[in-house]
Structures are given as C-alpha cells and as structure tokens.
C-alpha cells in the first residue's frame, strides 16, 4: 500500500465519520431538506439556509421533543 492509498483511506474514513456525526446531531438538516425538495418537489422554491433554520426552530417551538432522564 502506498502513502497516497493510506491517505485516501483516511480521508474516506474521516468523511464517513463526518457524515455520521452530522446526521446524529442534525447538522445536515438543510442539505437533506434541499435534496428532498429537488427530488420530490422540483418546482418548489428552495428556502435560504437562514430561513430554513428559522423555520426549523419555529417548528421545535410548537412540537417540543423530550430528552430522556
């Protein structure tokens, strides 16, 4: 295995870890929502990232999620 192979593997590993972590904390919510709109509602207007997060927190205001003890 060459050094570039190892580096490539490390980079892919780090990419997977980042993808996993973003999913767990919900950091990828905007990207996923945009992907969802493009796929299912191509004519819908895509909100800006700022607007999306405002709406998301607005939503959390109305539908609180519990955390466990």
């Amino acid at each position, binding site marked *: 295995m060459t050094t570039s192979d190892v580096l490539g593997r490390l980079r892919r590993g780090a990419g997977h870890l980042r*993808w996993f972590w973003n999913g767990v*904390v919900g950091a990828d919510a905007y990207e996923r929502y945009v992907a969802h709109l493009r796929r*299912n509602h191509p004519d819908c207007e895509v909100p800006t990232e700022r607007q999306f997060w405002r709406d998301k927190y607005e939503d959390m205001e109305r539908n*609180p999620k519990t955390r466990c003890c």
Partner: protein
Amino acid sequence: MSVATPVEGKVRNDPDLPPIAVNESPQMTGKTKIYLAVCAVLAALGWVMIALVRGEEVNSRWFVFAAVGSYLIALRLYAKYIERKILQPDDRRATPAEKFDNGKDFMPTDRRVLYGHHFAAISGAGPLVGPVLAAQMGYLPGTLWIIFGVIFAGAVQDYMVLHFSMRRNGRSLGQMARDELGPIGGWAAIIGVLTIMIILIAVLGVVMIGALAESSWATFSIALTIPIAIFMGIYLRFLRPGKVNEVSIIGVILLVLAIISGKYVADSSFGHYFILTPLALGIALMIYGFAASVLPVWLLLAPRDYLSTFMKVGTIVLLAVGIVAVGPTVQMPDVSAFASNGKGPAFAGSLFPFLFITIACGAISGFHALISSGTTPKLIEKERQARIIGYGGMLTESFVAIMALVAATILDQHLYFGMNAPAALTGGTPEKAAAYTNGLNLVAQNGTPLPAVDPTMFSQAAKDVGENSIVSRTGGAPTLAMGMAEVMHRVPILSIVGNKAFWYHFAVMFEALFILTTIDAGTRVARFMFSDFLGALGRGLKNEGLQKFADPSWRVGAWLCSFVVVLGWGGLLIMGVTDPLGGIRTLFPLFGIANQLLACIALCVVFGIVVRSGKARYAWIPGVPLVFLLIVTQTASFQKIFSSDPTIGYWALHDRAVAAKAAGNVTFGGAKTMDDLDKIIRNTVIQETLSVLYAGLVLIVFLTTLWVCWRAIQQHTAETAESPIEQSRIFAPAAFVPTPLEQEVLEEWKAAGLDPTPIRAHH
C-alpha cells in the same frame, strides 16, 4: 394480516424497481455461528470471573466482557425471536418516514445515524446515577439486574414500542394507550406520564444540586454554560446559520475553559459568591427552568442540546476507552451486608424490591417509551431496522449503566460510603465521617475486614479533586465524577489534558449538562402536555376558557402552564434539597418507582396490542417483564406506604415525627430543630400522596389492559389500530453490516443507476 412467506430470496413489488426487501433464510450461516460462539466465550469468561472466581480482586475489564458478550448474543437470538414470533416486520410496507417524507420530521434516515440519534435521545443522567447508588449492595446484584434486566425487559420494551408506533404512523405512547386501551386507560396513562415527568425533573434537579452545593468551582463553571449556550444560539441565528458542528466545537472549547477557570475563581477573593446553599441553588434552578421553557428555542434550548450531545457521546466513549485501557480493580465486595439488612446509607430497603427501583434507567426505563414512540419511528427507513435501533440502542444505554457501576465500585469503600451517606449519618466532617465508615464493619472481597481509615483520607480525597469537602456529597453525581476522575487521570493521553481535579469537574459538568437539558426539554414537553390536557378537559366540559389552552400560540396560556409545571417540580425539588434526612434518600426511590411505573404503562400498551392482534401465545414476552415490574413497584410502593420501619415507610416516619414533636424532642432522626421536624411531617405527606397516586394510576391502566385483553380473547377478534399498508419503494439493509443477500440487492440498485434510499444529501 399478511405475513411474509419465509422463503429465501429477493422481494419486488414493482417490476420497474430493483427488489425492496429480502427474505433471509431462518437458518443461521456458519459465519453467524462462529460469531455467536465468540460472543459466548467472551460472555462466559466475563461472567465466570465476576460471579464465580473468588479470593482475588476483580478487574473491571471483565464487566465489559460479560456485558458486551451477553448483549450481542441477546441481540442476535432473543431480539430475533421477538421479531419472528410477534412483530413480524415486513419490509414491503412503507414506514411512516417513507410515506410522509417531508424532509423534516418525517424522513428516512440511515440506520447507523438513526441509532446514534436514538441513543443520544434516550441516554441521560439516569443510567449514570442509579448504578452508583446501587453499588452499596455490592457489584454483583447491580450487574446482574442491569444486564439481564435490559435483555428481558428494557430492550424488549423499547423495541416493541418502537415497532408498534412505527406501524401506527409514529403515534405517541399516550395516543396508543387511548387507541388500544380505551378512554379510561388512556386518560390514566396520560395523567401518569405527566405527573411522572414532573417527579423525574425534580429528582434530577436534586442530583445536580448535590454536585453543585457548597462548591464554587462546580457552580461557577455550570453557571457559565448558560451564557455559552446563548452565545452559540446567537451565532447560529445571526452569524453562521446551520453551522452546528462549528459552533459546537467552539462551545466545547469554551466549556473546557470554563472548567479550567473555575479553579482560579474558586481560589480567588470573590470565589465565595459561588458557594451557594442547596436552597438558593434550587430557587435558581426553578427560575432557570421557567426562563428556558418560555425563551425562544433557538436561544437556549437548541444550542444546549447540541453541546450536551457532544459532551454525552464524547465522554461516554472516553470512559469506555479509559476503563478498558486502565482496567482498574474493583474494591466493592460482590454482595455487601446492605443487600440483605436493608440499612444501606445511600438508599434504605433490602435488595428486593429496592435494587430494581434504584437502577431504573439502564435496565428498563419507562421514559424511553416516549422517545421510541413519536420521534424515532418517524425517521426509520425499513421495518426490520427497528431491532438494531430499538433493542440495540437500549443495550448501549445499559452498557453506560455498567460503566457507571464500575466507576463507583473501583472507589475505596470508605470513600464511597463517606460520600454517599447523608450528613445526618456522617456528621459532615472528615473526623466524624471516618468514625462513621470505620464503624460500618466494611469487608474486602475475600471477606477480611478493611483496615480503619484516618480522617485525613477524606480531606486528602477532597483536596485531590479541588473541593473543600467530599463528605456526604450524596446524589450519585459526585461519586461518579470521583470514579471517572480516578479512571481518566490514569489514561496516558488524558492525563496530559488535566489532573484529577480537572477530570472531576469535567465529569460534574457533563452530568449537569445532561440534567439541565432534560430540565429544559422536560419542562417544555410537560407544559405542552398540561395545556393539551386542559384543552381536552375544556372540550369535555364545554368550557371555552379551558379550550383556549389547546392553542399553543396563546402566550398567556403557555406562560401559565409553564409556571404551573415549574411550580410542580420546583416544589418537590425544594422539598428534596431541604429535607433533613437527605433528599436523595427520600426522593430517589420515588423517581425509580415513577420511572418503572411508566415502563409498566408502556408494557401494558404493548401487551394489549399483542393479545388483541391474536398473538396471545407470545404475550409472555412483554408479559413477564410487566408482571415482574408490577410486583416490584407495587411491593416498593406498599413498603413505602405501610412499612413500620421509619427509614422505609412514609407513614411510620410521619407518625414518629409527629410523636417527637408532641414530646418536644427536636433531635429526632436527622432533625435538629422544630422546623426540621415540621419539614419531615410535611414531606412524608407529599411523598405518601404521590406514592398512592402513582400506584393507583398504574393499577387502573393494568386492570383496563386485562379487561381489554379478556374481551379480545372472548370475541376471538384480531383487531388493531395499525395504519393501512402502503407499498415501499426503497431498500436498505436491516442491521449495521449488510448480509450477502442484501449486498446483492444493493448492487442491483447501483446497476440500475438508482439510489436505494434517499438518505444521503451529499456524497
């Protein structure tokens, strides 16, 4: 009802799409057999070392072996058995996430990500505190209950609730109770959930105050988390929206700085401003709870939640690595004298039923049913994934409990009992504490008496962690922090980051963050439940004023409901922290009972569904844990109400306190003044009322369940409130690693140029 035919192969429901499900052969492959054999050897080795081999000190690594080995076997065998016999998931059916995909709260989510997400939502301070208190009975009873309890009760509950909620469009536990058990059972369940939540918040608050009281270092650094969270909220709203990881890393760095600076603040001339009494901290916590539940989510709650997730996952991983790397020796005996004599200082009562009450989360936690219904089922891609997410997620939580138990049992026994006995027993000073623990006749694992300790042991231990005193720091959190600090400061790389004092305060911070997050979120959820309840009551009574509460955007109503909820838990909290006999000792059993009763409600709902859907033959699967927990909780409630021993029974204590007051004897028990006596008299009445209320509510739910089941059996009907079937159009493997057959299907999707599931936004 359609049951997937157990023929091996790929299943299509649309000729234009690659397969959307697989039928695996029920026969185990050679690989699986080898895997199970390795797990069995691992588990057997662990169990032999901790349960059978005597005369030598037990290394804590064996606990990891026994736990992980047993979990993996249970996940493969028992969870699969439940899957095959009762739940019968069908991957041809679209899950709510697929049906209602809106890119937000309903959305197919990768199984590995969802597992992490679910775990982050179910894990909290509960599994960390209970095992620490239970360690007073020795390491073996707690270990057995945590591991076997999760396999046969806790994980079963979480898995089944998740599955049934998923089949009902992600309905909540309360809604399912109403659908399946009818209005009476449903209402009792809803009132039960609401009141139980209030007691949970109160007890967690008492635990946190136990770690902060009289400690300027801890109080200062925890107080700083509020401005840090607000800063993160503003950053996310105005500066860089959506950069969650970036801001969380900044937040964690600020947290570490807060911990480090805490030491200097504590040593400074103004450090004494942060030494607060438990009462002052209780009032501060109430004000905070109210503010957090009415302030906008983005300002405080959401950023704190990110911070807490980071700390939670990070610290748990660090602790696991630390225990495996350091392998500290367990100091506690396997079974201590307190297991049978019921006179333990951390909590009173004998092993049965009180061990099963004290370790609630970690073995079985009713609270999880609220997450497993409602939140997670709206995100799951395929029905068969519920096993690793529901059952597997709970196994991970149980592992956290095992680590907490290890952290407590590796401490010197004198130190453990000196920290966990209330001040009424230890006298609060190193001299009296040493005299107290020396008088406990503690024995080592081989049965020889432990040598007596000098008071300097307690003052030195306090100095090592940068505290003024560690005597009677009850509540479990300080003990856990002590155990974690003991492990962390011996791990090579972590020891460079900080000394024992740093890791102690890091651990306190980590627990306090959990608890504050639960208080924030719990108050808000309880407020919504309360206003929903009032609104529904208004509809029932045709009262327009009450009906207005159903509208969540009505600010006055929101404020009023928040106020009532905070007053509810705040009252209990103040009662706990000012209790002359030590709040944890009196309130923790109530917390455990409440949580286990919630589990009873969840298991009742599950049991009812199983019987009503015509699978009464397998109703023992939720039935056995249900009956066991009912016996445990009702026995505990009965003892708490009727026991003539004043350390256990509320009435007995109440009567003696009244008699002592009448006789003018103010030095009764832990009381020192007439005021203390009045507190005991009042607190016992409140605790008594709550015990009777909870036990009664659960009995109502249980009896309605039996009635509903009996009727279903009489009428030979198989009816459920499942939502109609819709065909799935996506594919994803069931477990973390795809099977060869699943791999083939994934290749087919790839060859067709299609995404098997819309889970990846980028990549």
